[in-house]
């Protein structure tokens, strides 16, 4: 008799059923990865034992390109394309770092317009984050509602600088255009328009029973782990860390504006779960509206190109500056060797760093929950891979 390894089921001998771990590839083309990311899963049945992320599918050598530019200003269109749903936020971080290196003080009007644009961008970015997260979980309608509203923000951007998605609007020392006549009124009207829609969103998605069941107590990220992995933005705040660079390491004119930092409180489950990460984004949209309204009211007159340098030639030095982008801490480390082109630029993207914690919070989860966890981290692969 030929004995094979399958000849007798293990259970018939009274022992437990032998199971085997299986390797499963999620991605690179998978709707919930929001781009091209491959997660190599080690699964035991439906339970995720380990997650090994493989990235780099969108790597475009941003840092190498930046070194080859003949001018610091030429880097701006490249940073637009890092986190492509939050281009204003990327430009903001880059120009803040470059202005720190060059010791340029921009006119107040520039600062206020930048804050308004960055906060509008935060809302637009969170609208994508929440909308696509709904789709990950199986709620399609909120996505359409959010995109309808986001379109209005893109219209405002288009009117200000001519582009809908990739703006090249923030220049080192100023802006490419001043606001067109009537823009301020339109922005105010938009704020009034959006407020009731956030309430509607909460009814549709945030407090929807199915949504809570899918996200509460899933992918809990404890406070100390979040800090040790240098998570930032909504991801960090959802874990109960009261930390926002706009308040704790202020830049531009954020110190003249009043708003509240939104922190996860474990309302639906545990502090730092997927639901908390989502609610922080919802509340941040409301707070951004507060910031925009104040900045619009305080907007001073002035020439937005008064401080544009004729020639950008920093002394040999280096600077690191960080800002609160929609996804968290976006920092640029710029080294100058005294010539007109950057010697080295390192981009510290929040998506890259926030993604690194995915293994830690996914072990032991179900495969279906992994989709919820990955969606809640709100990564943009253009920035992860640069």
């Amino acid at each position, binding site marked *: 008799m030929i004995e094979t390894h399958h000849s007798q089921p293990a259970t018939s001998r009274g022992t437990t059923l032998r199971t085997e771990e299986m390797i499963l590839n999620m991605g690179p083309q998978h709707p919930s990865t929001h781009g091209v990311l491959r997660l190599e899963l080690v699964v035991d049945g439906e339970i995720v034992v380990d997650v090994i992320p493989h*990235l*780099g599918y969108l*790597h475009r*050598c941003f*840092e*190498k390109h930046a*070194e080859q530019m003949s001018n610091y200003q030429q880097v701006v269109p490249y940073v637009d394309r890092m986190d492509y749903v939050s281009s204003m936020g990327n430009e903001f971080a880059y120009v803040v770092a470059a202005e*720190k*290196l060059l*010791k340029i003080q921009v006119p107040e009007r520039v600062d206020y317009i930048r804050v308004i644009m960055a906060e509008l961008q935060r809302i637009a970015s969170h609208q994508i984050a929440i909308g696509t997260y709904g789709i990950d979980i199986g709620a399609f309608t909120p996505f359409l509602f959010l995109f309808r509203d986001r379109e209005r923000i893109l219209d405002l951007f288009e009117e200000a600088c001519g582009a809908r998605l990739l703006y090249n609007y923030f220049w080192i020392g100023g802006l490419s255009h001043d606001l067109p006549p009537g823009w301020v009124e339109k922005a105010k009207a938009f704020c009034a328009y959006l407020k009731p829609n956030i309430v509607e969103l909460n009814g549709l998605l945030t407090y929807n029973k199915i949504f809570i069941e899918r996200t509460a107590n899933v992918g809990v990220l404890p406070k100390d*782990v979040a*800090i*040790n*992995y*240098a998570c930032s933005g909504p991801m960090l705040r959802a874990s109960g*860390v009261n*930390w926002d660079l706009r308040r*704790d*390491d202020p830049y531009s004119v954020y110190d003249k504006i009043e708003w509240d930092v939104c922190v996860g409180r474990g309302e639906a489950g545990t502090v730092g779960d997927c639901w908390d990460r989502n609610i922080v984004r919802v509340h941040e949209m409301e707070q951004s509206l507060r910031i925009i309204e104040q900045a619009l009211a305080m907007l001073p007159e002035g020439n937005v190109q008064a401080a544009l340098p004729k020639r950008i030639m920093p*002394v*040999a*030095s*280096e*600077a*690191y500056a*960080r800002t609160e982008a929609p996804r968290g*801490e976006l*920092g640029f*480390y710029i*080294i100058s060797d005294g010539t007109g082109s950057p010697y*080295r630029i*390192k981009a*510290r993207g929040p998506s*890259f*760093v926030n993604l*690194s*914690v995915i293994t*830690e919070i996914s072990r032991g989860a179900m495969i279906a929950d992994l989709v919820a966890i990955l969606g809640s981290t709100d990564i943009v692969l253009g920035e992860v*891979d*640069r």
Partner: protein
Amino acid sequence: MTFQEISENLQKKFGDAVVLVKADAAVDPFIVVAAQSVCDIALHLREDAAMQFDYLMCLSGVDRKGTFEVVYHLASMTHKHKLVLKVSVPADRPEVPTVESVWKTANWHEREAYDLFGIIFTGHPDLRRILLPYDWEGYPLRKDYETPEFYNGMRVPY
């Protein structure tokens, strides 16, 4: 703590391992430390009650033509102060001990510096390429890097 207090604290505790204190840098002041002590210094910076650098903002590799630098941008959430720490290693033996055990976030940053500069982080639990394909040859962010003509039969320069 001010930059001066932090640098004095480090000099008192680690002596010669603190190679250079550049307080008069044009923008950000920085401290250069010996590569072999970087992990101990990192742990001290995180654990010391007066400093508590619990947050590694950024870790970057830099090619200084002849030497490689690894730059650590640290911040403390408790005390809200920041510090730039550097190590410098010769280009022919670019080895730096990992600080992954101090800040987990260093894991991916170090893999990136390895991937793009070829800096070896000794003791790193998983030192693999991260952004480039696993079979890529060379380290693109080195200043003397030359783009290969072909990669797996595909033309590289465009």
